C-alpha cells in the first residue's frame, strides 16, 4: 500500500525528520541537564527553545575550512553520505496507515542495507581528513559496524518469522494482537543494543571518543560539514527509535489516540531512553565492545533465531 500523495509524504517525512532531529539537540541538552541537576539552555527564547536556531545560525556562519592535508573531494562527500543513507531509510518507515513513502516488500532489508552504507561516511571522513586520530575513528567505526550489523539483522529475523514478511507495514499489522516485544523480548534487547551501536551513541560512541581520539572521524570538520554529521547522528537515533517502535511496539497501533500520535509518543519515549543511556553510562573500551558483540550478542541472536524458528515451525 503506497501513499496516495507520494510527494506530500516525502516532504512531510523529510521536514518532520529533519526538524525533529534539530529539536533533538535542544531536547538532549535539556534532558541531560535535568539528569545532571542543571538547567541546560534556558536563555534563548522560551525554555531556551531558540537555542537550536542560534546554533544553526552559528554553524552556518562558521568558516567552512578544509584542511590543506585533506583529500578534498572525499572530504566533502563524506558528510553527505550519512545524511542520504539515513534519510533513505526513512522512506520505508510506516508512520501511520497511508503515511509511507515506499511500502517495499523488502522494507526491512532496505533499512538494514542503508544503515550499513552509512558506515562509508564515517570511514571516508576518517580517511580523507589526513589525520591519524580521524583515521583511527574511521577504522573503529568500520569494525564496530561490521560486528553489530551481523546480529542486528539476526535479531530481527525472529520478528520476520512471526510476521512472515519483510514488509514493515505487514509487520506492524501483524502486531495488532500482541506487540512483538513480548514474544521477541530477547530480539528487542539485542536490536536495542545493536541500534545504539549503529547510531554510534554512548556508550558505543568509540569512533568519536573525544577523550582519546579528539572527536575521531570529525576532528577536522567544521561549519556545515560538521553540522551534517551532527544532524546525521540525531537522524540515526530517530530512525532507530522509529524502527524499535515499528518492529516491537506495534508501530502506530494504540487505543483512543490517532495512529500518528501513538507513533510519535513511542518514538519520543525511545529517544528519551537513548538520552538517558548517554546520561548514565560510561563509554566502553574498544576490546570490550568487540567481545560483547561477537561473544555475547552474536550467539544470543543465533539462539533466538533458532528457538523462534523452531517454535514457529512447530506451531504452524
Amino acid at each position: 500500500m503506497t501513499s496516495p500523495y507520494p510527494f506530500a509524504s516525502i516532504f512531510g517525512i523529510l521536514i518532520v525528520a529533519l526538524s525533529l532531529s534539530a529539536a533533538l539537540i535542544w531536547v538532549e541538552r535539556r534532558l541531560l541537564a535535568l539528569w545532571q541537576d542543571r538547567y541546560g539552555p534556558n536563555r534563548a527564547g522560551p525554555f531556551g527553545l531558540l537555542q537550536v536556531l542560534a546554533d544553526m545560525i552559528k554553524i552556518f556562519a562558521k568558516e567552512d575550512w578544509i584542511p590543506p592535508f585533506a583529500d578534498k573531494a572525499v572530504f566533502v562527500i563524506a558528510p553527505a553520505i550519512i545524511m542520504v543513507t539515513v534519510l533513505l531509510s526513512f522512506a520505508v518507515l510506516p508512520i501511520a496507515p497511508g503515511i509511507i513513502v515506499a511500502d517495499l516488500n523488502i522494507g526491512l532489508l532496505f533499512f538494514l542495507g542503508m544503515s550499513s552504507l552509512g558506515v562509508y561516511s564515517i570511514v571516508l571522513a576518517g580517511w580523507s581528513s589526513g589525520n591519524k586520530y580521524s583515521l583511527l575513528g574511521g577504522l573503529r567505526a568500520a569494525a564496530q559496524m561490521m560486528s553489530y550489523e551481523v546480529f542486528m539483522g539476526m535479531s530481527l529475523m525472529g520478528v520476520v518469522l512471526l510476521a512472515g514478511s519483510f514488509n514493515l507495514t505487514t509487520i506492524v499489522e501483524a502486531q495488532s494482537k500482541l506487540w512483538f516485544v513480548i514474544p521477541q523480548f530477547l530480539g528487542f534487547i539485542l536490536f536495542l543494543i545493536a541500534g545504539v551501536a549503529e547510531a554510534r551513541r554512548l556508550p558505543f560512541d568509540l569512533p568519536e571518543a573525544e577523550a582519546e581520539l579528539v572527536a575521531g572521524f570529525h576532528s577536522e570538520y567544521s561549519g556545515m560539514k560538521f553540522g551534517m554529521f551532527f544532524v546525521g547522528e540525531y537522524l540515526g537515533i530517530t530512525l532507530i527509535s522509529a524502527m524499535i517502535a515499528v518492529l516491537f511496539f506495534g508501530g502506530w497501533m494504540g487505543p483512543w489516540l490517532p495512529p500518528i500520535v501513538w507513533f510519535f509518543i513511542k518514538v519520543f519515549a525511545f529517544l528519551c531512553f537513548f538520552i538517558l543511556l548517554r546520561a548514565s553510562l560510561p563509554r566502553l573500551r574498544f576490546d570490550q565492545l568487540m567481545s560483547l558483540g561477537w561473544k555475547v550478542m552474536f550467539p544470543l541472536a543465533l539462539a533466538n533465531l533458532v528457538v523462534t524458528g523452531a517454535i514457529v515451525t512447530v506451531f504452524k
Partner: protein
Amino acid sequence: MLSIIRTMWSVFLHTFHRRVTIQYPEQKAYLAPRYRGRIILSRDPDGGERCVACHLCAIACPVDCIALQATEDENERRYPEFFRINFSRCIFCGYCEDACPTYAIQLTPDFEMSEYNRQNLVYEKEDLLIDGPGKYPGYNYWRVSGVSIGGKGKGEAENELPPVELRRLTP
C-alpha cells in the same frame, strides 16, 4: 547488567532533584577571599608601591601576559616604570601571586571584567594599583631587604647589625 539498569534508574531519579545551577547574573555566587580573580598591585603600609620590579611574576606567568620595566627613584628604591597585564591572555592561575616576593601582586575575588573590545583588557599600572596593602596588611619588603632606600640606610633593616666600621683597629 543489573548494575547498568540500577545506574540508569538512579540517573533517571535525578529528574526530581533540585537543580544546583546558580542563575548568574540574577543570582550571585559566593567568592572566597582568596578567589583568583582580577589582579591588582598593592601598596606598602607606608603608602609606597610594593612592586620592586623584580620580574618574577613575568617569568612565572605561563601565558607571558605580564610585561614591566624596572626603574629607580632618586634614592635607588626600585619600582616599575610601567607594569602591564594583558587580561585577554591571563588565565588567572595565580602563579604571579605565588612568585611575588613582596606581596605586591595579588588576585582578588572579582571576575566581572568582560569587554566588547579586547584592547580594553590591557591594564596598565594605573589600572592595577590599589591604595592599600590588600591581603597582607603588615608586610613591607624594604624593611627586610639589605639595600638602602630613602628613609632607610644601610644596617637599618630588621635583624641587621649596624654597618661595619672599616677603619676600626680593634679586631
